[in-house]
Each structure stands twice: as structure tokens, then as C-alpha cells.
């Protein structure tokens, strides 16, 4: 795929380099350290709770704390370079400390969704084999069940209010413990994050440990993150993202969108979870690099939880998914006083509805730019350039990226022909962790095949037409029918089950299950309750329909496409 002309470059701003070349940073720890070096006392991360209680870490503090954690991981926990460290927490000040600490230790970060059930955690842990787990106390009660049979030797516990001033931290702790009872006693051997940092600092002081020695040799080609995704087939796979993938993807995104951004002056709102690749690369890494202040929201539900953050800070940029922008526009307090200093917003994760983009423009007077990418692409592949949005498209490829459509036979199609979207660039993952056959399925030479069917306008704007596989996207999260069907099939009262995605006003798509009863007494509530036990909330079927039979091909394969056609026809009525 050599695209000599790259027609989309015509839409790049005057200062945008079509090719960003290589980065000046050899690895992420070097980037983290050198940014902190320039503006030590600038505010890097501020965690804001629903009542306005907050805590802030400066660039120097994040740098120092992550150093201490790196030393703890290597010297006390005894980890080696390349060992995996799972991090499982909502947005909080601990997140950047944990992530940066893992990078500095020369270890590999495994992001885990904190809302995962113990079953889901176990699957991911079995595959990634982490040597350490850094987890928020609210979710630690799932650890014993999730690590049965394959224990994780080091567990570090943190909390949402970590690093907040003592009084707010104490109040939040009391409220969580006695009022909402969201924090249960931890039943595994563990160390608290502040104690781990203390131990790390002691080692630095007494043994003169050089943190730099852990990551000196790391190059762009070395593994930084295992980011789990169902991929296109539904088997959980860890996309191996390297230091180069993340550094360059962050630079690619900033090259295209950063023109209006001012170094050391931006304040961004991070309501999306950092364990998701979009917020991880764009919000956490790219804006850290820019020297922005990152306002972290631990839990944006209900949306009134972000009200104080909007009141107390001059937000200049926000990232989100369609659902978030839509819901914000529906909140009266947001309509009454939309953020005055906002420059624009970035949307990803799911298709941005044009009605929502329009509402957002009306309410805030700024644009929402839509981007596109996948876990396997670190994630940014395309973005709409500022002032040049085009309805119905996902924008144009970011610098140093080639995008084209491919036919069933793997041949590149001419512009304007519909086919599977393929992308090539420095952001494409190294492959799937321990799954070379799976990697081979999605790679066509150095081109990553996305599984999305699209078409490119003659001037380079890309449109998504359909998804190749049966994946359902619920408000930005991928749900694989196989996984949900497996859970349903395990229920003793279910004879057969099929799962599809149906259009949904609130979440874009919703999961719908068709079930043939084995036990005539089976009820919808029982099915949903069973699913809730084994699956994260967004995977639980919103709709359940009982059938006498399911449509099947002549070899007995359930035809999801027939069910989908039926559901669409019903919705159209």
C-alpha cells in the first residue's frame, strides 16, 4: 500500500508535518522525566470528586512518585524487566503514578477494567500472567476469586481519594466505608500504595538505586502495554503496544490537532476511564506531554458528578464518547453555563451522531471532532481536522499513516470502492500476546485490517459503512456475541442462545439475546441476573426474547444476520 499522493494531506494545517519522522524520546520514561524536568511545579493531575473535594499532583510529584513505585516493584517486589503489572482502578491520582511507575520499572502495564467481574478478571490474568496487581480498594474483594489457581504474588492496594489532602481523604474514606459500604475488607496479602512508595524512596536513599538503569535500554520496539480487546473474534487478546506505538501515536494525534493547543496552558477534563486506550493515549500521555492540567473524574455517573469540575476549573478541552456529549447537552446546568474556555472536544469509541454534534455546537459554541481507531492501533488512525469536519465521516488519516480499503482477497481497492479498512503506520501494534495465529489473521504484511467496512472519499475522508464481524458497540465498549452466548449457554435453563446488537437511542447499540428455553419456567429476570453475575454491566443483554427455534444455516450454524434483519425490520415499524 504505497499511497504516493495521500490526498488527505491537503486538509492538514500549514504547520502540520505529513510525516512526523521518529520521536526525540527513546521511551516513555524518558518522556515522562523530561516533561517533568521543564516545569516541575506545574499542576499535572487533579482528581475531582462529586462534591468538589480534590487533590493535585504536580509534574515533579508524579515523576518522583512513579520513580519510587518503580524502585518498589524492582527492588522490593522483585520484578524483572518485561514482567507484567496489572493496573485496575477508576480515574484517580494513583492511575498516572501506577502507569508511569510500571513503565519506569521496565515492566509491562496491563490495563484492567475495574468493573470486570471476577470471571472476566481471571481470564485476563490467566493470559497476561501479571507478577503484580495495583488495584483500587473498592474492587479488591474480587481478587481472591479472580486469582484462584494462579495467584498474583504482589498486590498493591490504592483508593480513589489517594493523595488528596488528609481531611477530604479521611471523609471520603469514612463515607465509603460506613455510608455507601463501597469498600469491603481486603482479604489478600497486600501493601498500601503509599507504603510501597515509602519503601521505594527508602531504597533510593539508602541503596542509591538509579531508576534510570531500569529503563535505559528500552527502545521503541519494546513492549509497554498489554491492552486487552476481544479483537474481531471475541477471544480476549492482549494487543502488544510498544513504547514506540504509544509515543508516536500521541505525537501523531497532537500533530494533527495540537495546532490550537498551548503548551503548559490547557486544562482538560478526563471523564472517560484511563484504562481505555483512547483516554490512556490521548488524555493521559499526549496531554501530559503538552504540559496540560488533567482533571480526572473517578466516576461520571450520575453526570452531576462532573458539575463541580466544570465550575471550579477552566476546562479547555474534553474527550468523550457520543453518549457523554449527548447526556451533557441534556443536563440543565450544562446548558445554562457551558464551559466558557472550551476550544473543542474530541470524540471516539463509537460513532458520533450528527444530531449530537449539532447539539454540542449549539450548547457550547465549539466543535466535537470525531476520531477513529482501535486498541490495536494505539488507538488513533483518523481524526477530523479542526474547522474541516465532514458529516458522516471519521475524518482523515493522522500524519505518518496510510489508510485504504481492501477486498476479500486482500487486494487494495481503488479509492471510492467499499472494503475492509486497513491501516499502516507507527501506531500499529506488535501483535497479539502469545497468539501469533490471531495476529496473522489481522495483519496483511505491515497493514492492520480493522474489521470495519468503509469507503474513502476521493479527497481522503473515510466513512464507516458496516462492521465485518458481529461485534456490538455499546456506548463505546465492544461486546462480542460469542462471549455473551457462552455465558447464556452455561445457564441450566437455556437450551440455545444467540446474541446480536440492535440500535439503541441511548447507547448507539444494545445487546439483544434470543433464547430457546430448556426450562419452561425461565424468566427474563433470571437470565439478566445470571448474566450480571458473570459479565460486566455493558455486556448484559438489555433485551431478552424467548423463541421456539433460532434461524440456522444448513450446517446448523446460528444465523445472527437473520436475527439482525428481523430486529431492524421491527425497529423500522
Amino acid at each position, binding site marked *: 500500500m504505497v499511497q504516493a499522493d495521500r490526498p488527505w494531506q491537503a486538509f492538514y494545517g500549514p504547520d502540520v508535518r505529513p510525516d512526523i519522522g521518529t520521536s526525540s524520546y527513546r521511551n516513555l520514561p524518558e518522556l515522562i522525566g523530561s516533561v517533568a524536568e521543564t516545569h516541575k511545579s506545574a499542576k499535572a493531575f487533579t482528581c475531582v470528586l462529586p462534591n468538589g473535594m480534590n487533590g493535585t499532583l504536580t509534574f515533579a510529584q508524579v515523576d518522583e512518585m512513579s520513580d519510587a513505585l518503580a524502585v518498589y516493584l524492582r527492588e522490593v517486589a522483585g520484578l524483572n524487566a518485561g514482567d507484567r503489572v496489572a493496573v485496575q482502578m477508576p480515574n484517580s491520582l494513583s492511575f498516572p503514578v501506577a502507569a508511569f511507575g510500571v513503565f519506569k520499572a521496565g515492566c509491562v502495564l496491563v490495563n484492567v477494567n475495574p468493573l470486570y467481574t471476577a470471571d472476566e478478571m481471571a481470564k485476563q490474568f490467566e493470559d497476561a500472567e501479571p507478577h503484580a496487581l495495583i488495584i483500587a480498594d473498592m474492587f479488591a474483594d474480587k481478587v481472591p476469586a479472580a486469582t484462584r489457581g494462579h495467584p498474583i504474588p504482589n498486590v498493591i492496594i490504592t483508593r480513589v481519594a489517594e493523595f488528596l489532602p488528609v481531611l477530604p481523604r479521611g471523609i471520603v474514606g469514612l463515607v465509603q466505608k460506613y455510608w455507601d459500604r463501597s469498600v469491603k475488607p481486603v482479604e489478600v496479602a497486600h501493601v498500601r500504595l503509599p507504603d510501597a512508595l515509602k519503601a521505594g524512596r527508602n531504597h533510593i536513599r539508602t541503596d542509591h538505586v538509579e531508576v534510570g538503569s531500569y529503563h535505559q535500554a528500552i527502545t521503541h520496539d519494546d513492549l509497554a502495554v498489554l491492552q486487552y480487546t476481544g479483537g474481531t473474534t471475541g477471544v480476549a487478546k492482549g494487543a502488544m503496544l510498544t513504547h514506540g506505538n504509544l509515543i508516536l501515536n500521541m505525537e501523531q494525534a497532537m500533530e494533527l490537532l495540537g495546532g490550537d493547543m498551548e503548551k503548559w496552558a490547557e486544562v482538560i477534563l478526563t471523564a472517560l476511564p484511563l484504562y481505555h486506550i483512547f483516554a490512556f493515549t490521548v488524555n493521559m500521555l499526549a496531554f501530559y506531554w503538552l504540559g496540560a492540567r488533567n482533571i480526572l473524574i473517578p466516576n461520571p455517573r450520575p453526570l452531576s458528578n462532573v458539575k463541580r469540575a466544570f465550575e471550579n476549573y477552566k476546562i479547555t478541552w474534553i474527550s468523550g464518547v457520543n*453518549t457523554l456529549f449527548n447526556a451533557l447537552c441534556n443536563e440543565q446546568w450544562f446548558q445554562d453555563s457551558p464551559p466558557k474556555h472550551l476550544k473543542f472536544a474530541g470524540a471516539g469509541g463509537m460513532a458520533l451522531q450528527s444530531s449530537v454534534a449539532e447539539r454540542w455546537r449549539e450548547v457550547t459554541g465549539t466543535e466535537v471532532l470525531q476520531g477513529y481507531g482501535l486498541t490495536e492501533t494505539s488507538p488513533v488512525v483518523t481524526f477530523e481536522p479542526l474547522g474541516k469536519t465532514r458529516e458522516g465521516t471519521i475524518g482523515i488519516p493522522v500524519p505518518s499513516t496510510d489508510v485504504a480499503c481492501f477486498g476479500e482477497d486482500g487486494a487494495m481497492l481503488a479509492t471510492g470502492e467499499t472494503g475492509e479498512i486497513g491501516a499502516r503506520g507507527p501506531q500499529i501494534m506488535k501483535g497479539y500476546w502469545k497468539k501469533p495465529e490471531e495476529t496473522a489473521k489481522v495483519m496483511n504484511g505491515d497493514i492492520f485490517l480493522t474489521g470495519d467496512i468503509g469507503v474513502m472519499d476521493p479527497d481522503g475522508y473515510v466513512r464507516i459503512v458496516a462492521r465485518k464481524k458481529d461485534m456490538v458497540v455499546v456506548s463505546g465498549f465492544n461486546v462480542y456475541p460469542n462471549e455473551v452466548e457462552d455465558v447464556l449457554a452455561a445457564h441450566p435453563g437455556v437450551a440455545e442462545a444467540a446474541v446480536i446488537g440492535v440500535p439503541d437511542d441511548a447507547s448507539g447499540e444494545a445487546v439483544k439475546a434470543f433464547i430457546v428455553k430448556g426450562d419452561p419456567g425461565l424468566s427474563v429476570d433470571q437470565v439478566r441476573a445470571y448474566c450480571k453475575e458473570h459479565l460486566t454491566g455493558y455486556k448484559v443483554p438489555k433485551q431478552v426474547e424467548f423463541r421456539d427455534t433460532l434461524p440456522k444455516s444448513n450446517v446448523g450454524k446460528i444465523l445472527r444476520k437473520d436475527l439482525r434483519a428481523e430486529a431492524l425490520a421491527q425497529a423500522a415499524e
Partner: protein
Amino acid sequence: MVDEFTQTLLGSMVAVIMLGMGASLTPRDFYLALRRPYGLAIGVVSQYGIMPFLGFMLALALTVPETIAVGILIMACMPGGTTSNIFTYFSKGNLALSVLMTVTSTVFGVVLIPLILLLYAAALDLEIPREDIIAVLIVLLVPVAIGMTLRKINPNAGAVMEFLGSILGAFFILFIAVTWIPQNWQFLLNTTGATYVAAIGLGVIGITIGYFFATSLKLHPRNARTVALETGIQNGPLAIAIVVFTFPPEQQQAIMAVPALYSLFIVITSTLVTFVFRRANTAAEQKLPDGLL
């Protein structure tokens, strides 16, 4: 009869409660309220129109001694209490609206309370220490302003203050229950049922009228429930403070009866109402799908 120590304690508790009230506010809230003066007007009407009139009618209809009648009137003329914010929170009402109504009614109260109190007192032929009441009200606006400033300068301190204020609001009622009731046991046994009817009726009827008033104006159900609670729930601690600081000691016991009893019973009334409102709310919430948000 209240000794000096208790008097100081009461005063400082009310001050902290008001500090917390101020800390829950930003200047932007006032700006927004002025942009939607309709909501503000509803608050003022329900707080200083409906409630004092209700108090007046109760004082008129029930055969109670003059001192009890003064107590009823004072209680009825009070601004919204911070406890209304807690109940609004638990009944999933519009917290911002509740806080705003509480504070605006407190601010407007400096002028309106003495005026209305005087009007109804004259109609009932009762003596009211007007100047002293104004003084107490103005003094209590100071912590509100301090709270607001604190919140602006340091959101953490503001949030802590807000939290302590609401805790203290609940503690205040407990304090009344354990100190005032045992000391005034005999009085409470001797007083007529009419006193109890007034103390309970003020809350129950106030919430009911407030609700129908709001729905007749076609307010969003969530806001209607908020206005209802805001109307019925008065600032009990403030009423008690006013009685303690402005009336001669020998009259205090009887005048304080309704404010003290009201403060206790309103907790029960509001809790029951909260259960009803919560149920009504569940169906109407903006549902956010599970997923990336």
C-alpha cells in the same frame, strides 16, 4: 429557659450550619437563579407567602396561648433549612435548586421575615422584638458569606465545611432531642394537643401545599418534589436561635415549644415523604447506558 453555655453552643452550631450552607454555593448559582427568576419567585412565594399564611391560619384556628402562637408564627416565617437539602438529595430531587432556594430565602429573609412576622403578629395582636430579629438574621448572613468565599478560595475546605454543616444539621436535632425534651418534660405533658397539631401540621401541610403549588405551575416533577420539601422544611435551628437570642428567658420555654417540636417531627415527616418521592423518581431519571462514559 436556656443557660448561657447552651446558648453559646446553639449559636455556634447555627453559625457552622450557615457556614456549610454558604460553602455549598458559588456566585454562578446566583447568576443562574437571576437568569431564571421564575424559580426564584416560586421559592419566595412558597417560603414567605404560603408558609407564613399557613402558620397564621394554624395560630388562628387552634386555641393556643399567645406564646405558643408566637412560636408558630416564627417557625412559619423561617427560610428553608439545610436539612431540606439532605432530604432533597435522598429523594433524588434537584439539589442545586434546593440549595439555591434555601440560600435565597435566607438572604431575602433579612428583609422579609421581620416584615411578614410583624404583619401577622399585628393581625394576631402579638408582641415581636423586631430589631433583635433583624440583627440575628444579619449576623447569620456573615457565616454564609464566609462559606461562599471559602468555597471559592479552596474547594476542599468548602466541601469539608459543607459536609460538616449538614452533619451538624442532623446533630442539632439530636441535641434538641436529648437536651431540650428532658428539661421541658413537664411542659410538654401539660401543653395542649393543639401545640402538637401545629408543630406537625406546619411540615405536613406545608409540603403538601408546596407540591400542589409547584405542579399547578407545571414544574418538572423533579423540581416540584424539590419545591415541596423546600416549602415544608423550615430552618428549625434558626428559629430556635432567634427565640433564644431575642426573647426574655421567662417566655422562651413556651415560644420555643413549636420550633423544637417542629424540628423533631419534620425529620419523621420528611423521611416518609422521601420514600414516596424516591419511588416516583426512579422511573424518570436520565438513563445512562453501561459503557464508556
